[in-house]
């Protein structure tokens, strides 16, 4: 109560009446309270009557500080009057900003031991925005993850293993049930916290354990800006934000943090509803804050690069080396030159570490790994090849789609408006996206068809798919991943007599292999369909999906065949050929021709799509 009163007083009286008296001329506090810097320091969204993203009362000095910027400013100034040093040590960024406004004296931070020690220890002079790309074979992680890398000054900048990671993540109470965790993690309910850890732990986590590529974008910040960012980070120690997977997530919080440094740059407004990490990286790039990124290939990518340099016989030997340590003495291996043996031992070592990564540690595995490392070392220092950098994820097509499709089925013409909230399908330009992946969220198609003169015009829902995921990961002699797909939603059987709108969920898992310069796949599965016009409304139909896909940055083509057996309601066969031409980053043309053989008859269709990404 006393604090609140003091806050009000601080606000009512001009600043010169404050004990600190640092500012001889009166400053308009109400104007200051409305400034962008103060808004950003309090994590209040732009706009009228907004509430701070911070839910933790410990972050605010005024009782209604989360809503009332003026009250919080008054309370902050009052706190500085009463306990100047304590308040400065708790809120160094607020202090620096108020000092810059001429409201507070110099040197209040000089005796903040914890803060000064922390700053001295980490001694940061460069900040890097890191995007961890998607998991291998897991399109659901395609959105990625972002965090900051803090690079120390001096010699410590020479290895990223000496840098720090500043990360925002949901905080999970110990002992939490796994399902509840997934539910609350996505829909909210966990507090989110900023935390720091050695950057090598992030390399181990993403590059090694999860096999995700990392993109490191250095930020163009001067030392004053870095100072502000760290001072504000200190204010956020242990402070809870709500964590939501889709909007108030890691990437959104990082933008908030950057706005504290650059209050006049609006990074956050467009992400209030959903913040996809790669889109937030684009926003930071668009704001001109980023220099050329570095690519940190995952261990898996490095392993594939190593393996690509060997012929079949050598690949067989590499596999054996990884399995049996005595094979280092085998004549097949010894027939090769020292340099070749070294390269093969290195590949075998990496393969063994890769395969064992998720297993419990075993002495036998460790002994084999060590034997391979010794073999590598025997031949002297080895030059490490760098994996070639793929297209930058930020250079890929934008993640939302609007398309106009015109087509004809059995000579009946139609046009369709299609909207997809996110993200990518396998025929969209593959540049910057993981190979073989489709992740479509919120896809809606509305179709107009008919004959105006004959009076049978129709506008109707053609399709609504909340989610469709497909992952095609080719198998070979070293890797045997599963390829799989799942999709669910509403779909109109536009060639059936009743134009039935069915709801369905379908899924399948199988395998794919690299052939003919593309990927061939077979995905057996099931389709559960509810069709009010069928003899039996609810059916579980076995289905088989086969296809061949060629992806590319500009041109992509897919041939697809599907068969499903609806028992008493007949069988459906469907062949389609689709080609996509991405003629710019934001636009593509796609043509689809198909033939369907279904219980109610045959049909052929042709469709032309103009696809605009935004």
């Amino acid at each position, binding site marked *: 109560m006393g604090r609140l009163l003091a806050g009000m007083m601080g606000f009512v009286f001009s600043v010169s009446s404050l004990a600190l008296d640092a500012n001889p001329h009166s400053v308009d506090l109400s104007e200051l309270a409305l400034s962008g810097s103060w808004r950003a320091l309090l994590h209040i969204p732009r706009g009228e009557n907004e509430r701070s993203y911070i839910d933790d009362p410990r972050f605010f000095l005024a009782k209604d500080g989360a809503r009332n910027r003026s009250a919080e400013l008054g309370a902050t100034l009052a706190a500085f009057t009463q306990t100047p040093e304590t308040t400065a040590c708790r809120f160094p960024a607020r202090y620096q900003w108020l000092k810059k406004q001429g409201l507070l004296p110099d040197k209040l931070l000089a005796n903040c031991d*914890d803060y000064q020690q922390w700053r001295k*220890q980490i001694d940061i002079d460069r900040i890097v925005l890191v995007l961890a790309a998607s*998991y291998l074979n897991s399109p*659901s*992680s395609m959105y990625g993850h972002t965090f900051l890398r803090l690079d120390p000054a001096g*010699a*410590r900048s*020479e*290895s*990223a*293993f*000496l840098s*720090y990671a500043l990360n925002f*993540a*949901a*905080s*999970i109470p*110990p*002992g*939490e*049930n*796994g399902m509840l*965790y*997934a539910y609350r*993690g*996505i829909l909210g309910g966990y507090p989110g916290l*900023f*935390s*720091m*850890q*050695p950057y*090598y*732990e992030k390399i*181990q986590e993403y590059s*090694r*354990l999860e096999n995700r590529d990392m993109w490191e974008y250095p930020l163009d910040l001067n030392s004053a800006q870095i100072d502000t960012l760290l001072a504000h980070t200190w204010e956020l*120690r*242990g402070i809870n934000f709500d964590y939501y*997977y889709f909007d108030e*997530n*890691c990437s959104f919080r990082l933008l908030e943090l950057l706005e504290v440094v650059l209050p006049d740059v609006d990074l956050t407004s467009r992400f209030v509803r959903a913040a996809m990490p790669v889109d937030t990286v684009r926003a930071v790039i668009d704001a001109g804050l980023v220099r050329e990124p570095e690519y940190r290939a995952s261990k898996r990518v490095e392993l594939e690069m190593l393996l690509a340099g060997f012929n079949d016989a050598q690949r067989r030997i590499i596999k054996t080396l990884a399995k049996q340590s005595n094979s280092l003495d085998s004549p097949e291996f010894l027939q090769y030159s020292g340099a070749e043996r070294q390269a093969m031992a*290195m590949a075998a070592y990496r393969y063994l*570490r890769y395969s*064992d*990564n*998720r*297993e*419990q*540690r075993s002495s036998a595995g*460790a*002994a084999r*790994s*060590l034997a391979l*490392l*010794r073999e590598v*070392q025997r031949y*002297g*220092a*080895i030059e*490490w090849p760098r994996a070639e950098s793929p297209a930058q994820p930020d250079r890929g097509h934008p993640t939302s789609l609007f398309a106009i499709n015109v087509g004809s089925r059995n000579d009946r013409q139609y046009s369709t408006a299609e909207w997809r909230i996110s993200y990518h399908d396998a025929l969209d330009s593959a540049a910057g996206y993981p190979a073989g992946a489709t992740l479509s969220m919120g896809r809606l198609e509305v179709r107009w068809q008919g004959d105006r003169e004959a009076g049978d015009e129709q506008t109707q829902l053609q399709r609504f798919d909340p989610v469709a995921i497909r992952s095609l990961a080719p198998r070979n002699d070293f890797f045997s991943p599963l390829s799989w797909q799942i999709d669910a939603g509403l779909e109109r059987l536009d060639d059936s007599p009743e134009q039935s709108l069915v709801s369905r969920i379908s899924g399948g898992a199988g395998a794919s292999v690299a052939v003919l310069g593309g990927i061939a796949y077979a995905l057996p599965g099931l389709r559960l369909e509810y069709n009010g016009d069928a003899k039996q409304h609810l059916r579980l139909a076995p289905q088989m999906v086969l296809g061949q896909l060629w992806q590319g940055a500009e041109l992509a083509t897919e041939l697809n065949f599907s068969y499903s057996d609806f028992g008493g309601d007949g069988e459906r066969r469907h062949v389609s050929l689709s080609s996509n031409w991405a003629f710019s980053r934001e636009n593509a043309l796609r043509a689809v021709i198909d033939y369907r053989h279904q219980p109610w008859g045959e049909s052929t269709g042709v469709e032309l799509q103009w696809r605009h990404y935004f």
Partner: protein
Amino acid sequence: MKKILLASAVMAFSSASFAVAPGGPNCGWGNMLFAGQSGLPSHLVASITNGTSGNNTFGMTLGTNGCSADGTLTYGGKKMINVGAIMDEFSEDVARGDGEALTAVAVSLGISAEDRPVFKAAMHQHFDSLFPQGDVSADAVVASMFQIMKSDQRLAKYAA
């Protein structure tokens, strides 16, 4: 670190069931070539929702989570990076003669830019004494490292 904690919470293991690494429990993670820590596979949900467990906020910098205050450890009175947490990367770098982990160890030992190639070459040549078997501890590796430095003219001053 955090995901080991999480995985252990989810799978109802206690984090005490992990061998203690030189940096303290829960420092670093993954299946290690050298004894120290072991990894657990179940962290999928954590990855999807980008979760962390509650106790590590600023833990590293304030020394509350078992890791040392600034990611460095003291070995025989000398501060350096937690070798136990990067043993896999470090051993591979030593075998091939260079790499980020080896550079990090050299820098954290205060070895000057001119002497770093000497340090790297010395470690590479003495791979077998650094890593005599798969169960070597980080402490033993660091002890051998100091031995190698002491017996090298240019490197002895850093081991003093």
